[in-house]
Every structure is written in C-alpha cells, then in structure tokens.
C-alpha cells in the first residue's frame, strides 16, 4: 500500500494556486474603481525608472549634443531671419486680439478656460507590449490631472493631438494615445466644418467615422482635422491630423475617412500637457 501524499508533495500546486488566486483577487480590486491603490506602487517604481532613464538619457543626450553643435549655427541664422518675420506678424496679432476682445465684450462671450502647456518627456512604455500607454515625467505635483490634454509633434511649432492622461501619480502620468483602439475624439474638418468621431487603429492611420455623406463634395484629401470641443475632454481647435483617403460605400450612411496624425505617435519624445493656469502657478510656488 502506497503512503498517502503529504502537503509537501503538493507544494508546487499549492504555490501556483496561492499566487494565481492572489493575482485574481488583486485584479478584482484594481480592475474596477480602485485605481488609486496603484498610485503608491507606481510612484515607487517611478523613482527607479526615472533614475534609469536619467542615466540612459545622459549618454544619449551627450552623443546627440555633439552632433547637433555643427547644425546649430545655420539654424541660428535661419531662426534670426524668421524671428524678424514673426515680430511683424506678432504686431498684427496684437491688433487682432484687441479687436477680438472688444467684439467678445460686445457679444458678452465667455471665453474657454485658459490653459498652460507644461513640457514633459516620455520616460516609459508598457514593458509587455500589450498596452500602448505612454509614461511621462509630469504628474499631479505639476498640475496634471486625469483627462489633461497632451499634444506633441514633429516640431514645436506645429504640435498635434497626442492623447489624454488616464492615470496620474505624484510625478508621473499615463497617457492614452489617440492611436489606441479604445480612444475616440470628437473632431471637425477645418475648412468644410463637418463633424465626426476619430478612432485609433493601433499602428494604422486614424479612422474618421460618422461624417455626413453630404460632405463628400466639400471635404477633400489634404484637409486638416481639428478637435471640435464636443465631449468636454478635448478643447476645440487642436490639430489632430490630415485627411489621406475618403471612402464612400453606397450601402453606408456615412463616409469612412483615413486620417494621418500630425504627431508621430510611435516616436514621441517630448510632449506638452495642458493644465489649468492656476495649477501651474501653484506648482511653481511649491517648494
């Protein structure tokens, strides 16, 4: 007669069951509304990640700086010339702003809440590759909150919409890019003014849906798409992308439009996060 198996003989299975059940219990708590429980952990890992990122960034920046020195002189000359042009434009804008203010006053118009753009750096991505969230080095202590708008682009002069903040800790925030399939943004075409909903498709260009079929004569390839301001997350007027293809299915009620985002979403390094101006001044005052 064989001896009865003891607890020790089953310890592999017991360890597995214990850890699997722990994972599922954790998941049950954190997958619903207990996101805040993660903040402490995120902050702790953030310190290590920020340190590692700083070391990598130091070496990369040193090499890049040497390469850039040779280009700086030419760019300086070009920038000086360009600045003269902008000064002229600026004077015109000042006049227009004064005129605009007078007209708003006449119409008793309430301007949208003013926003400041806080520069941020991308310091991490999902290590398993199963999520597209970006990690940036700005958090609640810099005035960043959930649903803060994030922009960035090929250059600082023409930023495009990158996405919105979905989770925040003290000094870090997670950004859901507009290319993620669960991201949806209310937009309108800048010239023809038709509205629609733009959705992410991963690495493929963005997909603009629910555009009235009557727009097929007015909307054109090359036209810019901006946020419409509907939905209360994204303010209006932020450039999202440019139309690259328009498809009209006879059986469909709306157009299907492909949009190339202005921001190069897979190569983002520096971003700007929109925060209320009061939060910025408080963050500046903080020790």
């Amino acid at each position, binding site marked *: 007669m064989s001896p009865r198996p003891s607890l020790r003989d089953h310890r592999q299975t017991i360890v597995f069951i214990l850890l699997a059940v*722990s994972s599922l219990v954790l998941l049950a708590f954190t*997958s619903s509304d207990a996101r805040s429980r993660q903040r402490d952990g995120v902050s702790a890992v953030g310190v290590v990640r920020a340190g590692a990122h700083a070391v*990598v960034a130091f070496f990369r920046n040193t090499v890049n700086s040497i390469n850039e020195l040779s280009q700086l002189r030419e760019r300086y000359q070009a920038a000086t010339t360009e600045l003269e042009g902008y000064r002229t434009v600026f004077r015109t804008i000042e006049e227009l702003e004064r005129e605009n203010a007078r007209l708003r006053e006449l119409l008793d118009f309430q301007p949208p809440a003013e926003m400041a753009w806080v520069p941020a*750096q991308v*310091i991490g991505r999902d290590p398993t*590759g199963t999520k597209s*969230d970006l990690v940036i080095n700005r958090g609640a202590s810099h005035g960043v909150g959930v649903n803060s708008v994030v922009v960035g682009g090929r250059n600082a002069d023409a930023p495009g919409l990158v996405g919105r903040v979905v989770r925040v800790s003290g000094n870090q925030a997670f950004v859901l890019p507009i290319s993620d399939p669960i991201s949806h943004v209310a937009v309108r075409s800048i010239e023809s003014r038709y509205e629609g909903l733009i959705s992410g498709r991963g690495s493929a260009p963005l997909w603009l849906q629910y555009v009235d079929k009557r727009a097929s004569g007015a909307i054109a390839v090359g036209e810019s798409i901006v946020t419409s301001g509907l939905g209360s997350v994204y303010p209006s007027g932020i450039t999202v992308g440019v139309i690259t293809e328009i498809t009209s299915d006879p059986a469909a009620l709306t157009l299907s439009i492909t949009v190339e985002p202005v921001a190069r979403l897979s190569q983002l390094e520096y971003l700007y996060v929109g925060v209320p101006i009061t939060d910025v001044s408080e963050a500046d005052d903080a020790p």
Partner: protein
Amino acid sequence: MTLVYAGPPLLAALLMLAQSVPSAATLAHRFVPDLSLVVVVFFGWRNGRISATISGFVAGLTADIASGAPLGMNAFAGTVIGFLSGFSHHRIAGDPVLMPAALVSLAFALRHVTVLLIIALYGIDGSAQSVFEWFGLRILTTVVASPVLFAVLRRVHSFHVPRRIGEL
C-alpha cells in the same frame, strides 16, 4: 539556497523594469525582446515549477506596476506561464537553440492569450488589436534572443547552484 529562491524572481523583475525604460520614445520598443519571459521559462526548465511560478508572478506584478495595468493582470499571466514552464523540468532536453526557441515562443503566445482572456473577463479597457499590435515582431526578437540568454543563464546557474539541488 536563498539565491535559488530569490535570484530568479529578482532577475525577472529587474529585466521587466529595464524593458520599459530604454525603449521609451523610440521605435525600438517594438523590437525589444521580452527577456523577463525568457528568464521565467529558463528557470521553469532548469529549477522546476516553484521557482518559475514565483518568478512569473513577481515579473508580472512588476509589469503591472510599470505599465499602469490593473494589478494582477500580468501577474496572473506570469504565474500561469511560470507554472506551465515548470513542466519542462527534467522532461525536455535537446538542442540549445531550438529547445529555448520553442519553449519561449509557446510561452509568449500563451501569455498574450491569457492577457486577452483577462481583459475580456474583467472588462478592462483594451482590445485584441492593442494586445497583439506588435506580437509578430516581439515574438521574433524574443525567440531569437532566447538561445543566447539561455546559454548565459546556464553558465551563471551552473556556477552558483550545485547540481544536487535538483527539483525544487
């Protein structure tokens, strides 16, 4: 003995954390091999189920914290991968290139399927498209890296751990 228990989870967690840093802001994140997964599979094959299960759990928990995913999502997937990897202990031996590549590719695919199931079951924000976005490219780099990392870990392992320890 402490090294046998603490070493693998620590190594898997450190690699998982490292994977999230140097790839930031570049196209490189699409190509970064999942070295943490290779480590879990290696210790399942070499040490057995307990070592790999704990390593998978710790590495997964690290991934959850680093990526902002709900705690437990990758931890559960890692636990399953670690436990199943342990079945190869004393059962599979063979080619130093093909054997790691086969084990790791199976583990990689299973991890993604497990994550997808969790997303569907718990109603977490996410989709099959985002989970499998760079699947082809990352499984390729991970499988290519696996024989190299297996060889390195074999050398380190044989240096630190006496052969008589055997099954944990």
